[in-house]
């Protein structure tokens, strides 16, 4: 089943809204755990997202160029060794797609709703 180019499913809307909300809070690039945590805390009840679901949504959004990502550059002080984090950033087309999804009746958690101002 093919989707329209700009069509988003609910988890993708939630993820984009979470990344945008974090960006508005001053976190320009965020990793998967932070996005998942934001979905959980700000997305309201019933926003339990499985790891696989979250990362596949992130991968799809990146493939459609709604998100951009890169590996964390230098090892952070809190984790000098161990696996690296992948940092995500919403793109202009991602913001437009999110606005369009919300305008078409897509729902996002109350705290995730991007400020209209």
């Amino acid at each position: 089943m093919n989707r329209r180019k700009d069509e988003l499913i609910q988890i993708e809307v939630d993820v984009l809204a979470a990344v945008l909300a974090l960006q508005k809070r001053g976190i320009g690039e965020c990793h998967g755990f932070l996005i998942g945590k934001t979905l959980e805390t700000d997305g309201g009840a019933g926003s339990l997202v499985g790891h696989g679901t979250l990362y596949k949504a992130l991968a799809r959004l990146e493939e459609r160029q709604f998100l951009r990502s890169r590996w964390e550059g230098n090892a952070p002080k809190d984790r000098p060794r161990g696996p690296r984090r992948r940092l995500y950033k919403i793109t202009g087309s991602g913001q437009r797609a999110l606005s369009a999804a919300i305008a078409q009746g897509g729902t996002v958690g109350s705290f995730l709703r991007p400020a209209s101002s």
Partner: protein
Amino acid sequence: MSAPKGISLGSIVLATVLRMEAWWLLLITASMPMEPRDRYREELRSHLLDHLEDDQVLGRGSLKSALRISLRFVAGVPADIAACARQSRLLLEDRSKGPAKRFVLIVGMTLAAAALCAIAKLSGHPELWFVVVGLRVALLLGRKKWHSVGSGFPRPMDATRHRPRS
């Protein structure tokens, strides 16, 4: 049976949950091409580490951490299985599959058959052998009937469908 002194029940449960998650991750990413597989594995390991660190900062105990991680694990399993099924279907229907893909397919089917045989042996239900044979036949018969679907993985994971441009 009680846990030895110095090791809490919570830490044992947490270690078990983490091991389970690690094995699941290895299993569901086994058939992916190397680049997306390594990325996916590293991201999920990093995610789990962040999860543990966050729980520690918030003062959550090991048992609570284990419960939270396993809840997400269970929530994600259906999506993981669906994605793996799509990926396997892509492997099966790809007419230009090479020896590596065929190898992954054969290993996957062998593992599934071995698991069923082990279950049959342990549960004392030898009739499960027929399920193994039936599965194999169904796979072979259904091979040509399956239609193309998107995998849900980013493009590199769909590399099995990629044909070089001439």
